[in-house]
């Protein structure tokens, strides 16, 4: 809760709007800026992308790469950044820890000459690349969804001026989930057999923080935590964990271990002998890989993301373009993240008068200042940075205005062939909540 309060205090809405910059279609804004620009250099702008292209997080890493490629093509078609073409160079972080992540980021800057780093999420402590960016005086945009970022940047803004998390931290998942299930019960959409929540988490900080945030606030919403289990990654045979769940018979099962492969097996094995429980799977279920692996067992599952493709013109147009380009197995939810981050960066850099160079902080600081002022509408919603923590505001947890925050969406899978339908929050919902087929009315 402290972080929530800090964020609200970090930037008043009035103060933000004073210097705000509204991104009404980055390509159009860029094209206008490029019209009057004289190319500053014939050299391309190198954007370094430290991505997990192999290992457990690769399903997302590939989407992040594709999102960057698509955005770069669009930006280049609009004239690049003030006449300079954008070139994406990737380095594989191998779904590894800080050592691999740091060396990937460092290689991109020192060997490839990256002027900025843009990523989706990486594992590790989620503070490694902020340090690489700070040492090299470059801008770094990421979607780690990590409280570690907000703590780091808030405590030392003089060092981490260039690091931005373009989504809210994972802590909001806790409040949002509890709020959501309470709303389902209060409105009569769900009659759970009891108030018990069983939490299954994984070994990574993201999963653990979300599980802990649900655990710490459950009582305030009238729920009790009946089981708290931590599994290894990967977990392919869920037998012992499912035996505990079947004994516990909770009204709600929350799996915050987010690997889509493991979540798919969880659902397949759970449905062999299901309990009367609402099942919520953190993030992984939003990926096409989950539906592909789980098949029919994916139908009825709930998931949430605070950086997912929304409904509406901007989002649907992106999803159509992305799926048309990368095929039906692609996940717009993943690709959209880096897609909008690169567009946001390009627009801010153009407005700042061009990108900076590594180890020369003056120009990169101008770009960072523009980023801080931006209100940017991408496929996943509105990116507006908290001025202190440099993370995107969350709607509806931190702001009640959907045009000023990144939507924290809850979705339900209705058909295995399709992405989940958004069932909350307003105004983005595309379907109503339906009782999963394994639950009793």
């Amino acid at each position, binding site marked *: 809760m402290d972080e929530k309060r800090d964020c609200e205090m970090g930037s008043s809405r009035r103060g933000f709007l004073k210097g705000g910059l509204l991104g009404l279609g980055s390509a159009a804004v860029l094209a206008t800026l490029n019209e009057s620009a004289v190319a500053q250099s014939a050299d391309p702008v190198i954007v370094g992308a430290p991505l997990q292209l192999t290992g457990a997080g690769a399903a997302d890493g590939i989407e992040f790469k594709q999102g960057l490629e698509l955005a770069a093509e669009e930006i280049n078609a609009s004239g690049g950044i003030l006449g300079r073409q954008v070139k994406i160079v990737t380095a594989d972080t191998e779904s590894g820890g800080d050592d691999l992540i740091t060396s990937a980021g460092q290689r991109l800057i020192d060997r490839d000459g990256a002027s900025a780093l843009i990523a989706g999420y990486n594992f590790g402590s989620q503070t490694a690349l902020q340090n690489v960016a700070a040492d090299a005086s470059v801008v770094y945009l990421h979607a780690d969804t990590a409280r570690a970022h907000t703590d780091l940047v808030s405590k030392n803004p003089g060092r981490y001026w260039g690091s931005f998390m373009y989504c809210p931290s994972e802590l909001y998942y806790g409040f949002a989930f509890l709020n959501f299930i309470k709303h389902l019960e209060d409105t009569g959409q769900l009659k759970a057999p009891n108030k018990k929540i069983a939490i299954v988490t994984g070994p990574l900080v993201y999963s653990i923080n979300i599980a802990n945030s649900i655990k710490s606030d459950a009582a305030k919403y009238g729920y009790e935590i009946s089981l708290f289990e931590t599994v290894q990654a990967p977990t392919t045979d869920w037998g012992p964990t499912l035996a505990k769940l079947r004994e516990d018979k909770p009204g709600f099962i929350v799996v915050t271990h987010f690997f889509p492969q493991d979540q798919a097996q969880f659902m397949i094995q759970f449905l062999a002998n299901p309990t009367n429980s609402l099942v919520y799977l953190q993030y992984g279920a939003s990926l096409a*890989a989950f539906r592909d692996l789980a098949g029919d067992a994916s139908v009825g599952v709930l998931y949430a993301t605070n950086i997912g493709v929304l409904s509406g013109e901007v989002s649907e147009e992106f999803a159509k373009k992305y799926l048309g380009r990368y095929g039906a197995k692609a996940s717009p939810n993943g690709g959209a993240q880096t897609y909008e981050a690169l567009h946001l960066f390009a627009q801010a850099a153009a407005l700042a008068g061009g990108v900076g160079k590594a180890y020369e902080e003056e120009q990169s600081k101008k770009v960072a200042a523009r980023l801080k002022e931006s209100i940017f509408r991408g496929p996943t919603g509105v990116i507006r940075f908290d001025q202190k923590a440099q993370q995107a505001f969350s709607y509806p947890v931190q702001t009640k205005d959907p045009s000023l925050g990144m939507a924290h969406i809850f979705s339900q899978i209705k058909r295995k062939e399709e992405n989940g339908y958004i069932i909350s929050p307003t105004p983005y919902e595309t379907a109503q909540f339906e009782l999963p087929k394994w639950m009793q009315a």
Partner: protein
Amino acid sequence: MDAAIQIIITGLTLGAMYALASVGLALTYGTMGMFNMAHGMFMTIGAYASYSLSSAFGAPLPLALVAGICAGAISGSLLHLLIVRFMLHTEDFQTTIMVATAGVAIALQDLILKRYGAYPFKQPAQIEGSFRLAGTAISYQSIVIVAMAALLIGALAWLLTYTKFGLAIRATAMNQDAAKLMGVRTERTYLQVIVIAGVLASAAGILISSLAGLSPAMGTDPLIRAFIICVVAGLGSVTGAGLAAIMMGLFEAAISYYIGARFGLPVMLGLVVLILIFRPAGLFGRMEVVRS
């Protein structure tokens, strides 16, 4: 009661997959003194070959399984013919072959990544559905995994125990020079051993991918567990590796249920440390099994 049945089913399923992964590794070490770091890649190659044939060409399940196993056998023979045989008589073979096979594993993993990407494809070679036993749901896939492991390991045991071919392998494992003097063509025996290891590992890979999906790095975790099992069993002890794998599977499932799922692997590693302290040759190993 339900929990006990679930633990046994999970333990046997895990144990069967571990057994297939570790028996080939134990056989290779026991016969040649070679720790094959590319053993995990045999699993990956088998899984992808089965997937490719089944999904791209619509081959029926049995044919796809056979193709996957054949791919493992071919990978094993190529590893021997192109690399191992040239290093067999070099100084510090046991160390250098680990480095060489680790290099092969990295290169193969990159090739698979290049060809297939990192998307976790679903393994078509699986059987869906389940049945109930005393209220506990048991998937047909678990039964297939246990049955396939029993069949392949049983066939290997028969081969090693009752055939001249097996006798040659056992003789080579005991004393390479003596075997040569008795007329055993040890170089051919080595090739046969690696092919068998490839067959078993690829079968393990197909079964593991039926639960976890495919990924270029899918062999890494099973390889680590296979190493642990080989150490617990006693390096080079084939029967011991099979038994230790089943024991470890059951142990891990019980630990997961009674203590917590996250303690499965740490407790296994703790057990290895204890065994190495009190029984350096492993539970089923004899000092003479290990080639000096």
